[in-house]
């Protein structure tokens, strides 16, 4: 074989000459990756959806409404009246009590389902899933039917049994509100705690057992401390959920003549809307949320609880003996409070000619639901709107989050810009819906970006609100695709878009459908941001349900609620088929 040593330090002159021939501009144009403008567009949209509302919120809180001059008057107005400060305190009380109650509900249930041989686990599991499905404000409606003063079913039962003058329960009170909020937030505690418990191996408990510690002592001194970070994180999460909630407090606190932060914010929007004061008043809510989410991340990311990161070893259920019956009783009590009782009375009301007439056959009718869906223009339009807005929002959120996830994972922009992008996409996670809505109101009620009064402001607010859910899913999906699959398209002559259309999109179909459902479901029931942004032609079911609550037409409220539940269940079932049973939990993987 001939050996030719070639070290071409100097190239042939001809090659140099022809290389220099095309004009620099022409070469630039040929070399340009023409997909760049899409990524720029994504950045612009993100600024429009996330940055602008929050910046406007800050600015408006320091502006005089008429002149736009700098002022602190809004802050003075927001915090100078004791009524307003009381609302802040009430929110704090509500958050802490509800979160505490959630722990009492969620932790024992998680332990029972994860670690013990308690019977009836399936039933408990299904009713917790059911609790997830009920929008919190619908639960509140259910509890009004159950424990409304005098007319509530529970009060009537007690009066019947004891002959008391007045029923003992009043749901229009702080304890009532705490109970209702806890009933619909405890599933978070349950899920967090259970997934932590699922990772604790039985061997750790065996180790304590062999050293002479009994089951109870082992559970309290070994198992529980191991899952404590998860429980703490869940506590923070439900606290934040409770203080940011609008529906239940509006349904229960307003008739009970007290305010929490969210209802107070809503009052600032009564005509004429005091946006600046509302913005100033929303600041503590925003700051607490940001701070606590930061704290929660620190807790869950802390090292030292090794068992929470690895795969658990062998796991055996703890035999409870006779104690399994009281435990089952407790689990069923929680499920009864949160799921069975409210659901029964809501179904009854939705299917009754008049709910007060009770559970008799001649009281049964489908008229409420038929009327709501087909005859009443208002509710029919709201149903259509709910579907359209939620679909559009989910579509936008997924498209945008997919773009961002793609940009970040394929490092199409520098690492720093990539970090900023993913931060912005996840940022709405720590912005309470009601604060986001005020930001949107502040940003898009004036020309040149006059969106208020159109459907777009609702759609965009929903899309922004659930962007983090979409992003967590899109990110995981993009990561699962080997970049070489796209490189292969490009080197064979396809553009980046060809690669996305022909390879990435077909491979992501399933997980994106799942992500769509995960955004669509909460968007159909979103109330706290919708309530600030809807107008007479853009009502959605959740707003309508709230609007109709002071008319006392509970049959119609229940019918609207059932429609919402029905939509949710259908889409969850589709999600199960597409993605497998665990797809609902991926939300918390963010």
């Amino acid at each position, binding site marked *: *074989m001939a050996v030719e040593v*070639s070290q071409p330090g100097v*190239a042939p002159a*001809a090659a140099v000459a022809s*290389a220099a021939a095309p004009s620099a501009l022409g070469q630039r144009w040929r070399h340009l990756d023409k997909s760049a403008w899409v990524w720029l567009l994504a950045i612009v949209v993100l600024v429009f959806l996330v940055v602008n509302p929050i910046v406007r919120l800050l600015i408006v809180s320091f502006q005089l409404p008429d002149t736009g001059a700098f002022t602190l008057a809004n802050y003075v107005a927001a915090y100078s009246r004791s009524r307003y400060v009381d609302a802040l305190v009430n929110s704090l009380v509500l958050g802490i009590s509800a979160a505490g109650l959630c722990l009492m509900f969620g932790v024992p249930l998680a332990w029972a389902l994860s670690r013990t041989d308690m019977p009836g686990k399936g039933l408990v599991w299904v009713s917790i899933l059911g609790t997830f499905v009920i929008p919190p404000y619908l639960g509140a409606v259910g509890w009004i039917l159950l424990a409304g003063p005098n007319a509530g079913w529970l009060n009537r039962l007690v009066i019947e049994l004891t002959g008391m003058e007045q029923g003992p329960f009043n749901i229009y009170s702080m304890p009532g509100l705490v109970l209702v909020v806890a009933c619909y937030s405890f599933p978070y505690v349950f899920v967090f705690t259970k997934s932590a418990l699922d990772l604790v191996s039985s061997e750790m408990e065996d180790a304590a057992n062999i050293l002479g510690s009994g089951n109870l002592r082992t559970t309290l001194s070994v198992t529980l401390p191991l899952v404590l970070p998860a429980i703490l994180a869940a506590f923070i999460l439900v606290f934040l959920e409770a203080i940011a909630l609008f529906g239940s407090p509006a349904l229960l606190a307003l008739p009970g003549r007290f305010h929490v932060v969210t209802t107070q914010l809503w009052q600032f929007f009564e005509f004429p809307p005091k946006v600046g004061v509302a913005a100033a008043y929303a600041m503590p809510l925003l700051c607490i949320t940001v701070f606590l989410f930061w704290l929660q991340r620190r807790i869950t990311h802390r090292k030292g609880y090794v068992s929470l990161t690895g795969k658990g070893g062998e796991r055996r259920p703890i035999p409870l003996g006779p104690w399994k019956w009281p435990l089952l009783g407790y689990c069923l009590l929680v499920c009864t409070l949160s799921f069975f009782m409210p659901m029964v009375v809501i179904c009854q009301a939705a299917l009754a000619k008049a709910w007060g007439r009770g559970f008799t056959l001649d009281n049964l009718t489908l008229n409420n639901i038929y009327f709501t869906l087909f005859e009443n223009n208002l509710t029919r339009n709201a149903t259509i709107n709910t579907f359209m807005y939620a679909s559009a929002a989910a579509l936008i959120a997924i498209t945008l989050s997919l773009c961002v996830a793609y940009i970040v994972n394929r490092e199409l922009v520098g690492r720093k810009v990539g970090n900023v992008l993913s931060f912005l996409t996840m940022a709405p996670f720590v912005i309470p819906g009601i604060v986001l809505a005020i930001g949107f109101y502040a940003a898009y009620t004036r020309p040149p970006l006059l969106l208020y009064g159109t459907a777009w402001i609702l759609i965009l607010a929903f899309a922004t609100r659930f962007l983090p859910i979409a992003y967590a899913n899109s990110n995981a999906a993009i990561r699962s695709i080997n970049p070489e699959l796209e490189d*292969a398209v490009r080197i064979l002559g396809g553009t980046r878009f060809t690669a996305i259309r022909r390879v990435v999109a077909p491979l992501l179909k399933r997980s994106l459908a799942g992500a769509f459902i995960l955004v669509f479901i909460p968007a159909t029931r979103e109330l706290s941001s919708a309530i600030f942004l809807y107008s007479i032609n853009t009502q959605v079911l959740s707003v309508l349900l709230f609007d109709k609550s002071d008319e006392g037409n509970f049959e119609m409220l229940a019918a609207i609620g059932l429609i919402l539940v029905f939509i949710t269940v259908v889409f969850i079932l589709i999600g199960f088929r597409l993605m497998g049973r665990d797809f609902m939990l991926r939300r918390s993987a963010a």
Partner: protein
Amino acid sequence: MSKLVLRNISRVFGDFTAVQDFNLTLQEGELVSLLGPSGCGKTTTLRMIAGFMAPTAGTIELDGQVISSPSSSLPPEKRQMSMIFQSYAIWPNMTVAENVGFGLKVRKVKADEIRRRVIEILEVVQLGALRDRYPAELSGGQQQRVALARSIVVKPAVLLLDEPLSNLDANLREEMRFEIRRLHDEFKITTVYVTHDQAEAMVTSDRIAVMNKGRVEQIDAPYALYGRPKTRFVAGFIGRTNFVEGKSNGDAVHFGGFSVPKLALNADGAGLPEDVLVSIRPQGIHLLKHDPGSSGRCCAQGSVLRRSYLGEYWDYHVALPGSAQPLRVTARPQEVFQVNEPVWIEIDTSQLTVIS
């Protein structure tokens, strides 16, 4: 005319220099391997040729046109190249035929022409029967053949292979080496082949560029690379070797137990430094029971320190007086020597290579 020219290419990531001042010229129809340990910059170089990455210095030219420079870089889809990836990157959502036909479709070839060429190329890689299968239903070797067919069928200007055999088991890997060389001989596509496996590079390549720490150590045909390594790294990386240090004195260079005339080491005898390092392959040394006498050959006496029998050959470690390192010697199975047995070594001076 040169097909592909890499001129003073460098690539820097932050503080880390992945590729430094890389020069390479490929002739039309040539297959050149980039060989080196992991992290030596060979894949980075390949991705710069493909256009997935721009160099931070230097230019890449294809058919005399600059396609990559620090300021701008032609996107991969416009380079008329094709590439085989470490993971094969077979699209799981398309059948074998769709995978192979994809590049033609992008090039807007007519449907019946695509069908004809896909069938033809699948026959060449012996996958004709599996046309309508999905990739998940294929074995690793078959996926590899799909990747080959997919990148050859478009008749690329340059074919790039990124460690294409590293995910296959040993037997299949050996088979695919010959397959790749056979396809190259059949289609004569200008090819750059990245690998860390020297046997793979030796079997497939016309020339091999050995890389280390982002630099080219040597570019040569396999035979020259093995027989005349220029650097210590190349000598050690390609096959096994003995390094022997010596001092030049007058007309000869003195090593531990033997000396060699300067003329035998270096054609003109000049330019040798005082301290000389040479490489001698284990099979360039013969072991003898008796002193062969002064027949002009290079001999020394030593003793067997250690031996291992590997079936195809003996591997002896022979200690020489005055030499710190024992010499490794490969001997045929019937050449049996006992440990501690005194032996005479005979060195084939034509196989001594001076290392710079």
